[in-house]
């Protein structure tokens, strides 16, 4: 299941549409890294609103993505973690430490915009 990745200004927005297998996650990671390299994107927004389960593999992959594109000078924002998913993640001890998470796209763009201008949000 390919995750569509769109370019919006200096940012890439990857919108997950349905449940992702491990192979899908790896494919997503590679696609994002490749596109950031190619387009010199400053930020990547991964919309996971459609994910009903985020387990250790998905969490690790998201952290990997953030780490890998940081090396290319870009920031990652994970958007739309569902309340039930957030709850399950913290109970399982899965953390997205070091990765920014916001409720929706608007918040994510705001965060990236502020970052871009060199201002500190919090």
């Amino acid at each position, binding site marked *: 299941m390919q995750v569509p990745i769109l370019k919006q200004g200096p940012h890439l927005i990857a919108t997950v549409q349905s*449940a*992702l*297998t*491990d*192979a899908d996650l790896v494919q997503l990671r590679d696609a994002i890294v490749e596109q950031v390299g190619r387009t010199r994107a400053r930020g990547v927004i991964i919309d996971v609103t459609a994910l*009903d*389960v*985020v*387990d*250790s*593999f998905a*969490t*690790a*992959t998201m952290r*990997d993505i953030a780490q890998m594109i940081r090396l290319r000078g870009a920031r990652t924002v994970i958007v739309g973690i*569902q*309340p*039930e*998913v957030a*709850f*399950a*993640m913290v*109970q*399982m*001890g*899965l*953390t997205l430490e070091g990765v920014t998470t916001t409720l929706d796209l608007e918040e994510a763009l705001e965060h990236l915009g502020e970052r871009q201008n060199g201002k500190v949000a919090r």
Partner: protein
Amino acid sequence: MRDEAVATEARVVVETDRDIVSARQQGRFMAAQLGFSPGTATLIATAISELARNILLYARRGEVTMRTIENNGSKGITVEARDDGPGIPQPQRALEDGFSTSGRLGLGLPGVKRLMDEFRLETAPGRGTVIVVHKWVR
């Protein structure tokens, strides 16, 4: 009152990563039918995901069986993850908190154990692994 037929058992053979998704979706469905809250159903699905992935990573093939259970009027779900693989080395360590729960290859077992009401692990070198967990609707 709530006498809709609840699927009492679902078995998924785990051989590919697609099966991991299938297993956890069926588990979530069963949990929701049993009356678990959406949060807890997600939790159960996440635990199933971890158990199924372990099968894939360590044994390449196995099966996950989900069953409804009853006891004194209480309903619950039991999940059995079984494989004929090489067994889990150092099972005691695998159950310790902090044993690679954040890593990709982490077994995720401490997390699963913490969240289920009952947890049982049987494994022996070359003799495969069986993990059985229960969670009760509360």
